[in-house]
């Protein structure tokens, strides 16, 4: 049997009974990887429901990269359009946070820009400054749903899963890795917009304008201080010189 023929047999639900062993092993590998990569989603929906949905995803979008910790890039969007999950509109946003957590965990190492690195800059120089996000910084903002609360309560087995006291409003999350481990921190709409604008290469003055557009009441100084404290940046550069971490 050629590899092509083998793949056809593997995908067909017929053939030699032993082919089912290979089919099951391949499917188990995909589902196990998704279960490992999306723990908060698993906890929200239960293992059995998760694994049946993961099987649907694996059939539609098998892995391309053997580094299975990267598998599931399209899984949040898949959950978002999955009809049986229509009564859980937050799943997509929570799944995205699981995905971002693994990305943060496996991103390149770098020293974080010190919290006081910008302290000596004159206001004009500060506005011209371009802040470069840390390679392990990941963030997300959801305009309507409390994805951060839902996600953080479902990441740890000991936490409560009672959703009764949750305020149903927009939330954001910042993930950083200033030392060895990933840490999470709530993020406002303005903070998220500020960081996104910095990542797009905008100077801090323009990033601040973007933050105010997104959140007119945004306390810019507090938002920037939080990003620096959390280690969201790796470096800063002005037109004339760069600042080391």
């Amino acid at each position, binding site marked *: *049997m*050629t*590899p*092509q023929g*083998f*793949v056809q047999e*593997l995908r067909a639900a017929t053939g*030699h*009974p*032993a*082919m*089912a*062993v*290979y089919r099951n*092993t*391949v499917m*188990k*590998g*995909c589902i196990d*990887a998704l279960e490992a990569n999306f723990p908060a989603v698993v906890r929200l929906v239960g293992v059995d429901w998760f694994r049946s949905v993961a099987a649907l995803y694996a059939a539609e979008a*098998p*892995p*391309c*990269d*053997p*580094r*299975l*910790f990267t598998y599931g890039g399209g899984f949040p969007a898949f959950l978002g359009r999955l009809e049986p999950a229509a009564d859980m509109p937050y799943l997509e946003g929570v799944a995205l946070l699981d995905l971002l957590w693994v990305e943060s*965990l*496996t*991103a*390149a*190492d*770098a020293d974080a820009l010190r919290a006081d690195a910008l302290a000596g800059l004159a206001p004009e120089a500060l506005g011209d400054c371009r802040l470069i996000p840390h*390679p*392990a910084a990941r963030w997300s903002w959801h305009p309507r749903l409390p994805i951060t609360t839902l996600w953080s309560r479902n990441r740890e087995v000991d936490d409560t899963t009672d959703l009764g006291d949750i305020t149903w409003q927009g939330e954001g999350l910042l993930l950083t*890795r200033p030392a*060895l*481990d990933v840490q999470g921190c709530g993020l406002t709409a303005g903070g998220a917009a500020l960081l996104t604008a910095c990542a797009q290469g905008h100077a801090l003055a323009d990033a601040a304008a973007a933050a105010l557009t997104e959140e007119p009441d945004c306390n810019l100084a507090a938002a920037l201080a939080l990003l620096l404290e959390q280690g969201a940046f790796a470096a800063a550069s002005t037109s004339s010189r760069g600042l080391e971490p």
Partner: protein
Amino acid sequence: MKLTAGVSLKPQHFEEAERTRADGLWFEVHAENYMVAGGPRLAWLERIRSCHPVSLHGVALSLAGDGPPDALHLQRLAALVRRIEPVLVSEHLAWSRREGVYFPDLLPFPRTTAALQRMAANIELTQQVLGRRIAIENPSHYLALEGHEWSEVDFLRELAVRTGCGLLLDVNNVFVSAHNLGGDALAYLDAFPVAHLMEVHLAGHSPDANTPLLIDSHDAPVSAEVWGLYRHLLARTGRPVPTLIERDDRVPAFEALLAERERAGHAEVLA
């Protein structure tokens, strides 16, 4: 340092592994899990590496595929090898990638002369890029494919002769395959070219829920039959061979893995 028996290293055992001191102890990890840009996982492996030999076991080079190994994947493996300086590097007599899709399994192929030439070229390329010798492992079989021109043992021997690669003999895979395809495990071991042997794997298996097949599940202790085959193999080699207690699922406490490792040491004495 002379390697005796080693164990699979899982993240939940990092701290105990770092603390443990035992003559000849070494650890093996799946290379793909550490192909990361940075972060705690790689930092842990480097800490383990600073106090124990580490072996990198790849599952995705797809050396028996119908083309060369994925260039980016091979580069990632080479980078990891440079960083970790593993004591052993191994891969499989199998394929797992085709047309951009990765199948998380070790898939079989007809052992033809054309397949031998293709795989030998892939091994040579890999050894050239890594700058070192690798070992090739016999997989578990579930399906009697048609069209084989070579026995598995002869195919492995020829690969070793042509490319200078070493061989990794998984005794559990020999047992499982003999059960599933109706072969003779002892005859397989007796014919195996032990001169090329670099490493042995021992693992547990489990019965399939739907068929009479045994599954190479790595989720149980090594079976009595496989320990018996291992002693038979050692009597043939006449020398201890670096031997891994391989465990990937239902991973027990670290002490339980070390106890199985001790047993591998005793088997060497008994052989």
